[in-house]
């Protein structure tokens, strides 16, 4: 995918890492911020639909939906990121993703405020996640993309929505 792209020499930091991060991203909005996820992991985008609540799960797990006969979990990314939960609008949608964890693939939906566009992000547009100081772990940030003067946050969705994460959170809640 990215091997054909010649990397300009003005990018500081690890070149090889930037290489693997370049490619097409689906960007979406969440509370005025723009986020990007790898387009290869996106299965489909659908409008909001009836979500069946599942008990004894953390607040950001909204429940399950019927995706053409498959029952898949849905997370609210706002709640997951600790943002205030606003009401759903006409632009609110569910992005269905293919998640890989422990060599197993599963589908999962995330609720976002609005989907923006698909961007091809070149390696020289990606910067490493800045050090937030202290020992703040940021495992689910792939990096930052600067496009036309705006910063978009690239997410490693496998880290965010994996079943381990939900189960771990559930244990803390209970």
């Amino acid at each position, binding site marked *: 995918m990215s091997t054909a792209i010649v990397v300009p020499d003005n990018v500081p930091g690890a070149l090889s890492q930037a290489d693997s991060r370049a490619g097409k991203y689906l960007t979406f909005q969440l509370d005025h911020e723009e986020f990007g996820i790898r387009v290869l992991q996106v299965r489909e985008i659908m409008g909001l639909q009836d979500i069946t609540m*599942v008990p004894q799960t953390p607040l950001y797990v909204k429940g399950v939906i019927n995706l053409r006969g498959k029952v898949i979990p849905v997370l609210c990314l706002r709640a997951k990121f600790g943002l205030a939960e606003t009401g759903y609008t006409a632009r609110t949608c569910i992005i269905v993703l293919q998640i890989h964890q422990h060599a197993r693939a*599963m589908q999962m939906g995330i609720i976002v405020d609005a989907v923006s566009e698909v961007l091809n992000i070149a390696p020289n547009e990606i910067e490493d996640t800045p050090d937030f100081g202290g020992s703040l772990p940021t495992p689910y940030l792939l990096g930052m993309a600067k496009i036309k003067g705006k910063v978009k946050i690239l997410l490693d969705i496998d880290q965010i929505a994996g079943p381990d994460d939900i189960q771990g959170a559930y244990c803390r809640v209970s």
Partner: protein
Amino acid sequence: MMNVTQEPGLQKRKTRKRTADSPEATPRNAIITAIRQTVDQMAAEVLASQGGEDVTAKVLASLSEVSEQARAAGLGEIPPLASELSEAVHSGEGKEGLLLQGIDRLHQAIDRGRQEAPKAEPGGQSQPALARISADPEILAEFLVESRDHLASIESHLLTLERDAGNTEAIHATFRGFHTMKGLAGFLEFPAIQKVAHEVESLLDKVRSGQLSITPTLVDVVLESADYLRTDVARIERAAQGEAVPKPADNEPLLVRIQAQLTGNKKVPSEAVIGETAIAPPKTDAAPNQTAEHEAKPEETKKEIKPEETRPEAKPEETKKSSSPESRFVKVDTSKLDFLVDMVGELVIAQSMIHHDGQLSSISNPKLQRNLSQLGRITGEVQKTAMSMRMVPIGQLFQRSVRLIRDLTRKSGKKAELVLTGEDTELDRTIVEDLADPLIHMIRNAADHGVEPPHERVQAGKHPVAKIGLKAYHQAGHIVIEVSDDGRGLNREKILEKARQRGLIQDSHQLTDNEVFNLIFEPGFSTAEHVTDVSGRGVGMDVVRKQIQKMRGRVDINSEPGKGTTFYLKLPLTLAIIEGLVVAVAKERYIVPIYVVKEMFRPTPASVFTVVNRREMVLVRDKLLPVVRLYQRFGVEPRSTDITQSLLIVAECGSKRFCLAVDDLIGKQEVVIKTLGDTFKSISSVAGGAILGDGRVGLILEMDGLFTESAHG
């Protein structure tokens, strides 16, 4: 199940010896001379037989010897000739002429072979077969599947044969199985399988020609060979997956035993040849089993191949049978089947959504209405067919038990026969798989604890051969499997005593028989005085109950001292579909599996009690039952918190009963169970999800988990 690797002889994995007839061991020319001699001798015998003496057996033996030697010497031309001749001898018509011609052709072939340079032996013993395995994975996969099928059919036919020695069709089927295995193994170059299959084939050939009688020892050897083949097939499969595997297990001891059967178990050849019948009917007073196997039961050795079931009659039946059954089946990947069933479920839901669409139904167009109802009918048919494709007859599961009983009784010296009823009863494939272990446990239990030794049985006035029954039938949307024995029955006092020792019960005077019998399902419970390798350690019955409960089934026991015990396993027909009550709490919909529901009612204020610091209780039929409010458990806002406004469902899971409070009952529905996946596996109160008629997901409640959790919470 008997396992080959437990056989001491086969456990050694020493380097395989070359057989004496391999080309390196004997100079090639010497072998050719030997072949020539055999053929000459055969010719002489055929000529001598013009007088009337039947030499079929001798000729067949010589022919197989010739082809064996020829194979060793690398004379590729001769084995097909030899087998052609064997067929000719079997067919019986004008065989002398055919034979003499054939012998001439053999001579020519031998002479040609003498002049040719020795070629590499095809399918030779010396070739390390595993190196070539990955050559064509598809062919190999087919071989693995086919071999398993053949082995399974061989086993069941053998067991039939042991009971009914005159069953020529079973002999032929077994023979065919080994023959095909040999062919396949030869083609793919697995010499170990080929060799064993070949030897067994010669053995069975003698059986079917009536030269050998069927004895338990013979069946043992053949079964062992089948086990050997199975182990080797498994080994090949592992190798194909890239695992490092040992060489094939040493088959020398097995071959020796087969040889012993071949030579030592001969019957006295009959002197009378009747008409054109190729095979002489065996004498009824056959010579006793000369291998002097002490285990061999006299009544079984005396079983005879009936004279009327000779080859010419059996042949048309054989050809008829072999062509029909296989061709009518298609092998389909189970995941495809599951997907189809899933999709059909969706189709049904989509259809019902259209059917219930208000706008559509308000259109008074007769054509549209007709088409809609036609759609509904077709959808229903498709669903029925899709569901039936997952159903398999229980017979194959029962067949495994036949082998088990045979091995168990031979080991313990007891005598028992298995009576199978309702083998055609169909149930879901997944249930069949899950049922295998519990069934094995129960049959072991019946054979080891239930059935008495023969002398005790005679003392009790019973037939020395016990009857163990396996019966399957449908009853009210369930399948019932009965495992019965006519043994000593459960000993109520002994169970009570053990239970008291283990502190399972305090006082025993008011326990019903059923309650007492259910104690044997407690973990670690055993009344056996001696621990045998079969049972008596007290594991088993609790595993049975756990497994059955996991399948949403139940076990009941009926037992009479001295007369026997019957276990009733009651299971749903399928695990994929569940019948449930759709209930509502506010806007949420939940499904309560109908098999746990005892009754439903709206409580009156007087029947509800709240014990201080304890949970809420409600009086149902003079019994106080705890109440679990679903909205509290699940954190949903209910329509009303007043319990008299809600509906109580009396649920029974295991031995526990409780009331579940919900807002309303929506209706009864059959739903397809969908797993919620790994994400929600830690939630014990939800068994899965189901797509409801409106396309939404409803959660299926796990009543056991719901109750246990609320008891702790």
